[in-house]
């Protein structure tokens, strides 16, 4: 199973993934024309912040079974079997919002989307960049991430990297040569300052 794996501690909150997502879902697929399109594109991934310094890029996990699919009364949600992506048929969506109520991650938003689609707000969640996957690419958010906070790949491979890192660190007390390096000293110092700032008052 391939997925976009989140390494939260590496997210710097730049929101580059959000911009890349909006571009990938625009009609022109290009930054400058995209911001001029009549039906504006928007991100399907959300970089949320707690205390102004703890960040988490939140995105559809394409669950299986997917609670949103299970509750949809019109069958507008379906699974694309090759990639495991949960997709929305905008024309079938009746904007009832039940999928959003069932979503454990709170990532479903209702938006106007470019045609072919009805002229109303529909479930416009992440489609796992199905078009890009079909062209041999990876989801735009993972492609845009420059810090490794979002990585696309076989989930067990990505977990194995974390596991072997943990093992290496635990057994050898090493850090620098592991595949997912430990947070560098200066970044740790910065986070400590931000944590202290957040804790004042």
């Amino acid at each position, binding site marked *: 199973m391939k997925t976009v794996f989140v390494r939260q501690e590496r997210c710097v909150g730049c929101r580059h993934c959000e911009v890349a997502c909006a571009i990938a879902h625009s009609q022109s697929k290009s930054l400058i024309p995209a911001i001029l399109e009549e039906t504006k594109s928007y991100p399907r991934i959300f970089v949320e912040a707690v205390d102004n310094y703890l960040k988490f890029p939140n995105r559809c996990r394409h669950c299986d079974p997917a609670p949103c699919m299970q509750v949809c009364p019109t069958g507008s949600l379906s699974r694309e079997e090759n990639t495991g992506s949960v997709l929305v048929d905008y024309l079938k969506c009746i904007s009832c919002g039940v999928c959003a109520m069932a979503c454990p991650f709170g990532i479903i938003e209702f938006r106007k989307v470019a045609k072919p689609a009805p002229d109303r707000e529909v479930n416009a969640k992440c489609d796992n960049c199905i078009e890009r996957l079909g062209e041999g690419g990876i989801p735009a958010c993972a492609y845009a991430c420059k810090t490794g906070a979002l990585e696309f790949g076989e989930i067990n491979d990505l977990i194995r990297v974390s596991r072997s890192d943990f093992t290496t660190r635990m057994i050898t007390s090493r850090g620098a040569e592991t595949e997912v390096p430990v947070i560098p000293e200066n970044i740790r110092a*910065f986070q400590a300052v931000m944590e202290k700032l957040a804790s004042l*008052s």
Partner: protein
Amino acid sequence: MTEQDIRIEAERRASDRTDQEIIRKTLDEGVQTVWDRFALQQPQCGFGQLGVCCNNCAMGPCRIDPFGGKTSLGVCGANVDTIVARNLLDDLSVGAAAHSDHGREVVQVLLETAEGHGQGYQIKDVEKLHRLATEYGIQTDGRATNDIAKDLALGILEEYGTIKNRIQLAERAPEQTKEIWRKTGIMPRSIDREIVEAMHRIHMGVDADYVNLLLHAMRTSLSDGWGGSMAATECSDILFGTPTPLTSITNLATLSRDKVNIVLHGHNPLLSQMIVNVAEDPDLKRMAEEKGAKGINLVGMCCTGNELLMRSGIPLAGSFFDQELAIATGAVEAMVVDYQCIYHSIPLTAGCYHTKVITTSTKGKISGTIYKEFKPESARDTAHEIIKLAIENYPNRNPDRVRIPERPMKVMAGFSEETIRKALGGTYKPLIDAIVAGTIRGCVGIVGCNNPRIKQDYGHITLAKELIKRNILVVETGCSAIACGKAGLLVPEAADLAGEGLASVCRLLGIPPVLHMGSCVDCSRILVLAANIAKELGVGIGDLPIGGAAPEWYSQKAISIGTYFVSSGVYTVLGIPPKIFGSTNVLNLLADGVKGITNSAFAVEPDPLKTADLLEAEINRKRKALNI
């Protein structure tokens, strides 16, 4: 939001009672303020916060992976140290330019006044004019004041582009300090040149050595502190008088219920001081009465407010974060701004009420405001016009939407370097004796702004209180001074909060334990104070038991001030992390390496109590080295 939520949120945002009251009003009325915009901007980009994003050229923007991934070089090949140091130099140069260009305008008005073109201006401090003229080698004996002023103004203006490779005002530093600058190659050569050279070095393919970049940043900051800022302070004193101690009031309660309220906001006293003078005109008072008002109430804001408070005792409505709150009282007829630290959205805030925002500088226009251009040759007429405009707006005030807090706070201000020296009997010996005896342990300058990352004024007030408790004298400028004014620390009675030694000295002299030394360009007064004490002791500034702090800074100007403090030998603690944490080398140089050059360094510490510990430790280190 429930009433309870609103109260909790207001308490989270600001320390001052009157600020909290009006924040509650903005939340209740749905008027957007700086805190709302800050929340909407979360999360802010980590590349930017770490200083590892470079947007200088069209091959970029580039960013370095702070976790050590593959993107370790920009397209141009710049590494993280280069990018971080270059960004810091860029920010610092913007700050230095802001101070120095403000200074240039004051010197220009001095020149025009001397030539008889300035409308309503005169040389107010002839003694200071003579003193500066002597420094500049200008003949004063038997010459007319205006002739001397003209020569001096030209002399100072020349500093901006001088080819003599030194700034006259920087000669005021003690010999030991200047020797460090010469040895390290950071003696400022002219005011504008350092900024232009900084811009050059930042261009792709020029300076890639972070040490070299940071040394030039130090030189650029010195051209501000000992150049442009000092020129601003000195020439403002010559034109409008050197401040002497006076009392006034501060906080949002300074706004009047039944008078025409005019808020004078920004940094430069040139037009605002003229408005102060013109407001005395009985015709304008009559006009205000005809409109149903009981008179005209001028209040200051930010550093324009500090300038007017220091010299004319004009009440101070508040600091950087109070500009929207003042408008939100619903009682401000006009907000007159010059430049720096003016929210670009201020006309939107004003649009929620009847307030008219009047921009006055050709360098600082904001669409949606009324523009009344400041020109020295028509300054009095412009001031008159602006006051009239405010008066005419008085009938538009909606009494149902007015809320003005009660009880302004008393403040004592006006502590120029000259005044402090005079109060001590013309020499720093009594202060030095008190420091040697340990009655006063040392002195700390707290400066800087407000920043939504920290509760407004919390850092300033907590640090000042903690330092005076430890018998450390505090001098302040800018928004820091306003914060402590609102908190009641700028009155002689605040000596009760000080340690026994400091309290006894304050009571003897009848002064507060926290001294208001002026606006942010007046940080140059702190430099002169330190230089004169050092010279009396026969040491460099870096040897003195003093420190600096900017607990709530936000502005590029604060980077320049912090750096000229450190470059002059003053250990400085920043409460907000500068955008340099992406580079360990830059961090280490500024927090440690620079010690070997100037015997001072930067530290980052958000907690004001821990900041006090750091400053006290530094003071003790310096005291030990001086054998006291």
